[in-house]
């Protein structure tokens, strides 16, 4: 004896973006908060230690924001002109920033006046950062030089003049305290070792380099410039691993997520793209209102902060996990009631008998099981089903048609129900996946209710709407056929070998023509 088989609801694979775990993860942020800064935001840096404050460098100031405060907690404004690249040290106590006047300033987070000023660059300094031993600072300036500074003495240790254009980005290795990289507008990325007099690796990016990033392992280097994001294997002496071209304007900033599994890139095309670092495919992307200059992700991916050219700072906080809170709110039943027998460990000689799982049937299935055709149709015309899952409604209509009881299910309905039915049909009949059955339904309705036509204004209006919808669809199909004809001509004018592809096109295109006798 077989079980009752529920109605098969045909689901079509959704076209366009597929919902993956990544989509779910990256969509899990609250609505963004916008803060207006004084100028273009050129750097955002999160403090490596809690509370996760972040330093935002814009115009001639550096603002420190708290995690949830939307007012700056602290401001460093001792800059005569624009400040650049406010970066935290690993312990979160010190902050370094370059400036337009060529001076690098070192601040204590708790103080206001700079602790040190490093003078040496003759042109604006766009890059400044700490090496991982915490006692040295590297910097790069528009005077084409990269320098290393000693914090305690405040003196320059070494100066590299290898770039032939502005140095605009840099990054220190986390595993080796002597290694840092700088990227320049001369299209190269150079890797320096503080112990040597010259660069050890030079990588040709091909475009002016806007941002560089070293992976935490130190083995991979990411450079961004022009429309390209390129990943290089440092350990192989700077071999190109992969070149990504997913933006259609210059990529300005790069960032890794906390796990190192995803790479984020922001671009002047107003998009942030998220790549998987295993497959280097785009797994998600965000779009923003203005070209993006800077981007930062807090540890644990709690917050995404994006700075744009119009000076707007866009902050998104992650939504709290919902499931947990709900279950806590609910009053739990007595622990023992539900744990009875759960902890029993079966002995070896025990024979386990699994309880048959009772499948709960949907309401329409129950009605179909008992051959209540009309009621089953009523059940799927409930607003919740009709509006949100029209495929269920159509599947039940199909099933009724298959059973030969569609006509009797549609018959004997009052004005309100006919109105409902016709509204549904008129709206959905043009959807290709529903067309075949809904045309039948429309035919039957017309047949049944032809005699009462003209008695109710509402029903008459619905009939007219249906006619209009079908007429529109026929026009549309006609146009499509015209286009197809044009394409056929085009294909035919190509080489003769293309015969097969032409046939493929023909078979894949929608050619169903809806006929109606209204």
């Amino acid at each position, binding site marked *: 004896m*077989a079980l009752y088989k529920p109605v098969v609801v045909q689901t079509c694979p959704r076209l366009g973006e597929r919902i993956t775990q990544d989509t779910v993860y990256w969509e899990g942020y609250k609505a963004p908060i916008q803060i207006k800064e004084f100028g273009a935001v050129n750097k955002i840096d999160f403090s490596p230690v809690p509370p996760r404050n972040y330093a935002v460098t814009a115009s001639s100031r550096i603002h420190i924001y708290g995690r949830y405060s939307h007012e700056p907690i602290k401001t460093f404004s001792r800059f005569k002109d624009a400040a650049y690249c406010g970066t935290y040290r690993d312990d979160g106590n010190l902050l370094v920033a370059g400036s337009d006047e060529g001076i690098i300033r070192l601040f204590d987070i708790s103080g206001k006046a700079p602790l040190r000023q490093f003078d040496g660059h003759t042109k604006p300094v766009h890059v400044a950062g700490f090496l991982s031993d915490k006692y040295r600072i590297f910097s790069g300036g528009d005077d084409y030089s990269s320098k290393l500074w000693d914090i305690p003495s405040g003196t320059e240790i070494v100066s590299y003049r290898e770039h032939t254009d502005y140095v605009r980005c840099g990054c220190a290795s986390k595993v080796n305290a002597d290694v840092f990289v700088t990227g320049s507008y001369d299209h190269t990325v150079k890797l320096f070792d503080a112990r040597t007099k010259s660069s050890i690796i030079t990588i040709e990016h091909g475009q002016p380099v806007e941002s560089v990033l070293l992976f935490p392992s130190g083995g991979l280097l990411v450079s961004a410039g022009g429309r390209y994001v390129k990943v290089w294997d440092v350990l192989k002496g700077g071999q190109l691993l992969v070149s990504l071209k997913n933006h259609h304007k210059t990529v300005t900033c790069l960032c890794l997520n906390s796990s190192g599994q995803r790479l984020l890139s922001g671009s002047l095309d107003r998009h942030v793209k998220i790549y998987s670092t295993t497959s280097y*495919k785009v797994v998600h992307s965000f779009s923003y209102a203005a070209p993006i200059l800077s981007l930062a992700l807090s540890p644990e991916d709690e917050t995404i902060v994006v700075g744009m050219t119009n000076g707007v700072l866009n902050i998104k906080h992650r939504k709290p996990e919902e499931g947990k809170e709900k279950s806590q709110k609910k009053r739990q039943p007595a622990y023992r009631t539900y744990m009875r027998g759960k902890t029993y460990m079966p002995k070896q000689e025990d024979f386990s008998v699994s309880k048959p799982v009772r499948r709960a049937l949907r309401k329409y299935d129950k009605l179909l099981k008992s051959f209540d055709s009309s009621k089953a149709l009523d059940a799927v015309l409930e607003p919740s089903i009709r509006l949100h899952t029209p495929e269920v409604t159509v599947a039940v209509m199909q099933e009724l048609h298959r059973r030969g009881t569609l006509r009797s299910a549609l018959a004997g309905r009052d004005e309100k129900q006919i109105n409902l039915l016709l509204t549904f049909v008129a709206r959905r009949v043009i959807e290709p996946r529903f067309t075949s059955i809904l045309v039948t339904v429309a035919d039957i309705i017309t047949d049944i209710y032809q005699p009462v036509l003209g008695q109710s204004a509402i029903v008459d209006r619905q009939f007219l709407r249906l006619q209009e919808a079908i007429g529109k669809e026929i026009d549309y199909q006609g146009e499509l056929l015209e286009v197809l004809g044009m394409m056929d001509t085009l294909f035919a004018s190509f080489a003769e070998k293309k015969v*097969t592809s032409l*046939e493929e096109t023909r078979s894949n295109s929608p050619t169903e023509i809806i006929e109606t006798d209204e």
Partner: protein
Amino acid sequence: MMVAPAALRVVRCGGGTIHGVRAVFSADSKYLLCASGDFVKMYSVATEETLRLMGGHADLVTGIQLNPRNHMQLYSSSLDGNIKLWDFMDGIPIKTFSVGSKLLALYALASSEDSVFVVIPKSGERDTFQLVSVKLTKTAGQDVEAKDLSVVLDGVGASPKHIAFGREGQYVASVKEANLQVYFFKQKQLNRFSVNTTKTKNRNSQFTCIACHPTEDCIATGHADGKIRLWRNFYHKKEYTFSTLHWHHDIVMDLAYSVEGTSLLSGGVESVLVLWHNESDCRKDFLPRLGSPIEYISMSSDGSLCCTLHKDNRITIINSNLRFSKSIQGLIKSIDVKTGLVVDPRTKALVLNGEPGHLQFYSLQSDQQLFSLDIVQRQYIHQAGLKQADLVKVAFSARGKWLATVEEREEATDPELQLKLWFYDEETQSFKLNTRVNTPHEDHITDMCFRDMGELEDDSPILVTAGRDCVFKVWVIVEDTDPEAQQSVSWSCDFVGSYHNYQATNCCFSEDGSLLAVSFEEIVTVWDSVTWELKCTFCHPPGKIRSICFGRLTCSKYLIGATDHGFLCCWNLLTCALEWSAHLNVLVLQPDPLSEHIAAVSWLSKESSLFVFKPNEPRPVYIQRNLCKEKILLAAFVPRDEPEMTGSEKYLWLRSSQLFFLTDTQELLTLSARSLEERLTPSSKQLAIEESLPVTPFSLLLGKHRHQQSQEDTDLGKLVVHNKHEQDSPAVKELLHTPAHVLPSASFLCPIFINSLLISKENKSAEEVADEVEMESEKTDDDSDEEGDATEMEQEDATPMELLGEMTCKLSKSQERELRKLRKMDYSWISAF
């Protein structure tokens, strides 16, 4: 056609319409007896196995009844005019009574001493039947004439369901069309009643079946309009009464009263068993979805079980509380076998349409259904005239990893088509749906095949479907590159090919998979399977191509095609020319997957003939005319597990595979040199029941073991004595009687235990020693110059019992002795020659 002494014969191995009569339970409800074609089958209720196959009738068995005076005996009647009495526990025919005319039904009553009732056609008139009682004389001898007939009722229905005997055989009731007649034996009174067909305005109130209450005077009749009428007071011609029960929407196929008569069972096309309590319309229970229309219902004599026979040859056993208990199913008869006969490469089972919307896997060895795969996955409504989706095409990839199915629903405007691809999941050991394609073609799919790559297969299988919409489509696996996707592979269309807007009718891949042949009405096109370029075309007008296939192995350069104008053509693919053609109306063209042979079944002058040929020679290897009277629609070669050794050269083509046919009555035939009796495996014969213990697999196992043991006992009596001796050796005793906690470690005990099992030299029986002495004395001349230890090989063989014993030590000893002997043997005498 000359037939060799060991001629092949056509053996029926399943299917057909097998149940023509109600089943009978044995008195203890442990066995179920069913008429099945020309045979009577006995099933075990507990294990569902066929225990006995009682053959002897020359035509359909039309009635079976237990002997009322001996419950171990069974009467059976057949269209061949004989009544046979069987001892069904042993499967022995006791007596054969020949009546002379066709017997259409059989009834046996406890009250009528030595006679049974049969329905026979009335002599001289067509389509009129009469119920007669036959006196079964108690004369000695196997074959007895039973010509002592006395007519009881005239003008009865031919079906066994149309007659029923009332309370303790006091009356007999019979229905035919719209008339009911009741005959009282004692009063010799005949009452006639009829349902007024004009009043109900339709002719559908005709009688279809009848059942009598076991204790009361009440008759239940089933009608074609789904009503059940309960008749009472039918002693009176006028004042009779009847009440009506109505649930069935279509014909009531059968009725049965429970043993006490408190409830009535009815069944019909809806395949729902209805239990009516106390003959009232309001209290009824249902057992729905039994799979297919119910044909017959029978109750066991103790009332604990009920059995329904279904239209698709299934037997369902149901508990008294209306719970489904068991189902006995062989080859399920489907409405129409559209899928063809396909062999599952994994299980070697035949695969074809089963229940509506299901695919049945039928095991040829055990004559049982292995499993039924639900393809359509929709509720089947048992209602006449309803067009529902059913399976039309099935194809397996070479290793059985992929299964492709096509289902369609006929509709006036456009057929609803679905192509489904199933993946064999090793973990769950079943097929899992991988891809579903809605409307793969715009019209019916005519053929479908996988590219059969043999060893190289399964990395990139290719599926080709040919449709009536004038195209064939090539489907390939596409891999989803996204590592987080749920499914890593799915199928999609890769290429669409057509030829001059002709309908594609057949498709077939060559053995190495490099070529695809697609027939378009009258033309066969050959395509390269890599570039999908059209290579060449073949045509043999007039007539459309009915089927095509490539030659195999040494004949792989040939392409065979059969046209519907009765031509069989063989084209050479190298020269692109017709090699030979033969005038033959070929219905089925089936290549053997393991050899070059191709079987063609033709339909000529109302009989099917079989031709087996190799494509490289136009003369057939084997011809069998008059294979059977039915039209053969399908055939399949099933690979044998091990090649059969046939003596005759003529049957070489049967060595690696066996050929099966399916006729239009869905009967499965095969060609075999052995008869069906031999084909039944010895294990099933062993199922004889010595005691009336319930037969369980375990008891069978035990029985077999016991049997073997007793055989060993007789063979190796000597050794058994030894064994018994060992059991009370001190070491074993110690081991078994010492408490576990004081025993030393197992590794310490092991050598002692093993040693105790060895047979020590001193223990050798005196008998054996004597044997050896004898051997010594029997030295032959050949090795007379050797020392006495050497014995002749033949003598070694003469005492195989020693070797047969499982004692390893002994074996090694004898081997040792042999070795020693060989070493010492001197072959110097050879040099003398």
